[in-house]
């Protein structure tokens, strides 16, 4: 058929049931994104004869003879390779100038939609953009873009260097023009497609897999089952030390432990053939009883998730527990344990004038990065296994593949394109092992891109937790004792079970001075999809409990919640102690909690925000705080290498991936600051195991504070060398010289960088080892209205004060905070998993798993404390996970203030809270 795309008449031969999105991508228009593949997210929006549509819902054949415009051609006709020459459409320019994106995966669809709005629609963005989901920004920057507000400063030289300025992301132009290449935005000749058969049972042993019919499907190249896979067990969870996590997972396992687990993979010439192959597989299972309720996991007769009888009797599969918070009890369903105590908790409660005790329940939520998990793999010209993956941890994935397949490090390369969101979900190896197996088995390039449904049913989630908290205080508000009892559900596998438990029970308690503290924590296995790393890494769940409890205690004592924190929170000089007096490497590199409390309190008092929707709505306000270590414990490493290039610019090699964290912007600013230049002169080579020696990865909020530190050291060393060489050439001292954008100013004139770059050139490296570590703080405050009978909640005012040290890029850091608040509001108000009686996930689409849309997210005022950290690079601290953590508690506290109802389980959805809200009112009225 014939179709006009971006002004070009093209011939295409779509499959009868193919959607337009796939056809456009097959033609090479990669700006058309596949986010949900079901018409919910809008990332695939294109214009069909000028009308915006979701191209994943349009049968390709219906576009015959019609004109399609994609993001690449929004500004005017263009060819596939006409990248740089195309000017920007005003809406593209607006998104660039407002930096209305983070990972940018939703951006093409967002721009295509926004560009088609009429004036009336622009006035009602909650309605007009309800078909466009963004998981990163919290939508404020998108609103600003549509409104034409600009925030990005010009990136040419400023007076004091680039640090502290709101400079745009280096990929801005590529993102808004649809030319930024994400994981799957490339053409690989001879590519095979991999599809996975997923288990229909929560617990079963595979007796037999009949692959004959699948292999007979035309186009099917290989069927891979547990018989073809390495036996060695590993953890999908990736840490610097692989021993942290339990080695309990097999690439393909004859024992099924959750509904949705991989059973077999089919590799074929087309996706359709691979799917047909999957449907043709015949599997015989011996179904076993399953365990779903974590509260039953440690009963003596509970079904065993990792039955010792299933273990390899030779032990050669390496099955073992994780070393971070290892299980102490003998029960096989115990994945991890954390215990600790200081002082005497019982004596502390005896001294208390008031005690609050309740169980707070945090549900299972998903990351919902708009780019699903996936990887492409091939053998390079030297036969080296190469993976292009959607990951936060390319180096750790490389190491895991080496261990799994017995390959040397120089035989495996892992790299990233631009990554479409992570939020911790990509601190796992969920696809690369399977792709590697398929590449090694077939010798051909292989693609495995998870569907949105697979992402919901088989990828990881936050750890659901039940946290029983008991806190006591004297009449003056001083805490006398805190006890936490945590039950974390790690699902079928123990990836991150120990780390999340350990971390969750740490900063939530260490933030408070209290002589008596105790924690008992258990992470248990169940026959449900595995939990894993998620923004906040356990803290969002425990902080919900602790901060709700402190609020309730303060309320009972008649103490203002801000005052309660001022009274009890740690201050510089106070030991930061959770439940162990063991020495640690966390220091007060800076301290801004006091400022955060003041800023949030004042902002809340100064402006009440929106009026409530109606006179009968109940209004109240609440707050909560969070503390977080700026770097994860147990080692986090980064290396950077920077070189002066012949054109007088610099090439900076660094390990960290860009997935909306904004680290690339920060790296440019840090290096440019050290080298007296501008960020546009810094060319990043990143997220490639060939680029540097090692990088633990961008998780635990380390992109700026660890990799940025390595970068700063490398760039500073390089600056020193260039100055020394220039000084020698000019016959003077380096102190007499100054490095600028174009050259070194010496008393005898400027020596151009292009001249210095000749010869052997200049290169320097820098390392960071992630220790010591500092602490950062966040205070969230809300004013809310709650409908007394329907249970609906509306946020009238939202404020977050953040202590991020020196803010290297205020615009970007504000975006991280806003995005964190929005994502946390999703968990606090809407998001939840629902399962059927057999453990199958029912919430498999974005229309049944509601993440915040523009209509759901209020503006959050972001305020920064003025601090300078002695640990982080240039005084900076991390600020990416932390904004998420205090939100649920602050919202619960505000609802408590408005209604009198203390809510102890998220989400606070109307259908779950209306009874509590009404019950309090009825009691009060009676």
């Amino acid at each position: 058929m014939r179709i006009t795309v971006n002004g070009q008449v093209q011939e295409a031969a779509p499959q009868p049931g193919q959607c337009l999105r796939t056809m456009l991508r097959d033609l090479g228009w990669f700006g058309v994104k596949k986010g949900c593949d079901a018409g919910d997210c809008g990332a695939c929006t294109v214009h069909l004869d000028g009308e915006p549509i979701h191209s994943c819902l349009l049968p390709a054949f219906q576009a015959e003879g019609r004109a399609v415009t994609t993001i690449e051609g929004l500004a005017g006709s263009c060819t596939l390779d006409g990248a740089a020459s195309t000017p920007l459409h005003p809406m593209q320019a607006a998104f660039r100038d407002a930096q209305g994106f983070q990972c940018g995966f939703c951006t093409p669809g967002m721009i295509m939609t926004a560009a088609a709005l009429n004036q009336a629609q622009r006035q009602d963005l909650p309605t007009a953009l309800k078909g466009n989901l963004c998981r990163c920004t919290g939508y404020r920057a998108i609103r600003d873009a549509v409104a034409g507000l600009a925030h990005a400063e010009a990136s040419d030289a400023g007076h004091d260097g680039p640090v502290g300025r709101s400079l745009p992301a280096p990929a801005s132009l590529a993102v808004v023009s649809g030319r930024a290449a994400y994981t799957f935005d490339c053409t690989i000749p001879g590519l095979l497609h991999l599809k996975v058969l997923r288990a229909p049972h929560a617990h079963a042993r595979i007796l037999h897999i009949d692959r004959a019919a699948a292999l007979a499907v035309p186009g099917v190249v290989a069927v891979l089952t547990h018989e073809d896979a390495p036996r060695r067990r590993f953890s999908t969870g990736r840490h610097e030390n692989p021993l942290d996590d339990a080695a309990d997972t097999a690439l393909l396992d004859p024992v099924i432990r959750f509904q949705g687990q991989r059973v077999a993979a089919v590799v074929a010439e087309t996706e359709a053939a691979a799917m047909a192959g999957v449907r043709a597989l015949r599997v015989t299972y011996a179904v076993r009883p399953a365990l779903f309720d974590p509260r039953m996991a440690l009963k003596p007769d509970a079904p065993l998730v990792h039955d010792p009888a299933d273990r390899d009797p030779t032990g050669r599969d390496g099955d073992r527990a994780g070393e971070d918070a290892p299980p102490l009890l003998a029960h096989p369903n115990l994945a991890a344990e954390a215990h600790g105590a200081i002082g005497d908790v019982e004596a502390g409660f005896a001294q208390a004038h008031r005690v609050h005790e309740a169980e707070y329940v945090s549900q299972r939520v998903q990351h919902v990065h708009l780019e699903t998990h996936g990887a492409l793999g091939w053998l390079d010209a030297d036969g080296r296994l190469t993976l292009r993956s959607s990951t936060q941890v390319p180096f750790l994935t490389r190491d895991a593949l080496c261990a799994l397949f017995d390959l040397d490090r120089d035989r495996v390369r892992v790299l990233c394109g631009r990554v479409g969101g992570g939020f911790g979900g990509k601190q796992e190896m969920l696809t690369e092992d399977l792709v590697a197996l398929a590449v090694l088995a077939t010798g051909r390039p292989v693609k495995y891109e998870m569907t949105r449904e697979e992402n919901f049913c088989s990828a990881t989630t936050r750890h659901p937790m039940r946290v029983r908290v008991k806190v006591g205080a004297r009449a003056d508000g001083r805490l006398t004792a805190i006890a936490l009892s945590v039950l974390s559900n790690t699902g079928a596998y123990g990836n991150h079970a120990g780390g999340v438990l350990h971390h969750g029970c740490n900063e939530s308690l260490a933030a408070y001075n209290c002589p008596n503290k105790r924690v008992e924590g258990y992470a248990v296995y169940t026959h449900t999809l595995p939990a894993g790393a998620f923004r906040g890494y356990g803290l969002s769940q425990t902080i919900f409990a602790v901060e709700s409890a402190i609020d309730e205690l303060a309320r009972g004592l008649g103490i203002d919640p801000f005052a309660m924190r001022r009274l009890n929170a740690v201050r510089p000089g106070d030991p930061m102690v959770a439940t162990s007096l063991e020495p640690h490497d966390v220091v007060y590199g800076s301290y801004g909690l006091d400022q955060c409390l003041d800023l949030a309190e004042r902002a809340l008092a100064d402006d009440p925000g929106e009026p409530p929707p109606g006179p009968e709505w109940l209004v109240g306000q609440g707050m909560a705080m969070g503390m977080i270590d700026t770097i994860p414990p147990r080692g986090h490493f980064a290396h950077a290498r920077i070189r002066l290039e012949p054109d007088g610019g610099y090439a900076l090699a660094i390990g960290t991936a860009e997935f909306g964290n904004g680290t690339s912007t920060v790296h440019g600013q840090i290096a440019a600051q050290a080298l007296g230049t501008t960020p546009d002169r810094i060319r990043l080579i990143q997220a490639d195991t060939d680029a540097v020696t090692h990088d633990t990865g961008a998780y635990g909020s380390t992109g700026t504070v660890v990799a940025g530190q390595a970068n700063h050291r490398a760039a500073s060393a390089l600056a020193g060398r260039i100055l020394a060489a220039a000084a020698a050439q000019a016959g003077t001292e380096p102190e007499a010289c100054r490095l600028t954008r174009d050259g070194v100013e010496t008393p005898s004139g400027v020596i151009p960088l292009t001249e210095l770059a000749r010869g052997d050139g200049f290169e320097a490296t820098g390392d960071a080892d992630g220790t010591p570590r500092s602490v950062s703080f966040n205070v969230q405050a809300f004013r809310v209205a709650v409908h007394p009978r329907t249970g609906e909640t509306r946020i009238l005012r939202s404020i977050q004060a953040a202590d991020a040290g020196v803010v290297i890029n205020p615009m970007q850091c504000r975006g991280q905070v806003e995005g964190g608040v929005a994502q946390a509001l999703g968990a606090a108000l809407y998001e939840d998993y629902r399962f059927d009686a057999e453990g199958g996930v029912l919430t498999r689409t974005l229309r049944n798993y509601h993440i915040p849309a523009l209509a759901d997210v209020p503006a959050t005022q972001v305020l920064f404390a003025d601090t300078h950290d002695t640990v982080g690079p240039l005084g900076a601290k991390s600020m990416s996970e932390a904004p998420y953590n205090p939100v649920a508690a602050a919202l619960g506290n505000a609802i408590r203030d408005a209604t009198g109802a203390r809510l102890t389980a998220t989400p606070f959805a109307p259908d779950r809270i209306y009874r509590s809200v009404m019950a309090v009112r009825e009691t009060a009225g009676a």
Partner: protein
Amino acid sequence: MDLDTITSVLQPRRTNDLPAWREGDAWLAGGTWLFSEPQPALARLIDLSGLDWPAAEISDTGLSLSATGTIAALDRLALPRDWVAAPLVGQCCRALLGSFKIWNRATVGGNLCTALPAGPMIALAVALDGTCVILRPGGGERHVPVLDFVLGPQRTALIPGEILRRIDMPAAALQRRTAFRRISLSPGGRSGALLIGTRGRAGGFALTVTAATPRPVQCSFADLPDAAALRAAIEAAIPEGGWYDDVHGAPDWRRHVTGLLAEEIREELAR
């Protein structure tokens, strides 16, 4: 998404050219539901867009909406001035979970045939006493009230080979006053309860309950009931266990808010 089991597509130009139905066939209208979920049982698509059925016909007898008319076309309709129920059209279009981009493709008939409890075109058509005109395989047609067309979640009165041609709504229904209420767990979310009240010039009152129940429910009264009578009628029409249960609202809450919204509607139409 790609429907990779589809092997052929038919694009008939005239109603008479509609093919004989066979297993694995699906009528394709806007495709906004069909292409939003895996359809492994389908092998052939019959594209209805080439039939060029007019989106809507307005006459003295009432409003006739083709099944293949889009939501966008419906929202653009200019209705006669004495059809005071007209605002209901826009309210129901806006109740669709999908955005205006979906309106450009999604059809009125598709919304009915998908038969989701929250389908707002179902609510609209039931509240306006709509009748489904169904083409039978091999010729002929039959008429079914919309209220009886939707049997439950994703279940309709259509038998294989039948096709929904249009929905007829009588002028009398369009001349009634209406009141619309909708609630969802999030501001723009899928409806947890969508209620429409209508009141005729002679005083007759009808309450249509959708989204809160697996299929639409209507309570009719010769005159405006008092609060207790309305409550009793809802309770009689929707038994315990008759409230829909999915992620868009717990059944007890749907029941509760249905009561609240019904009373608001009653009060509004009493004025």
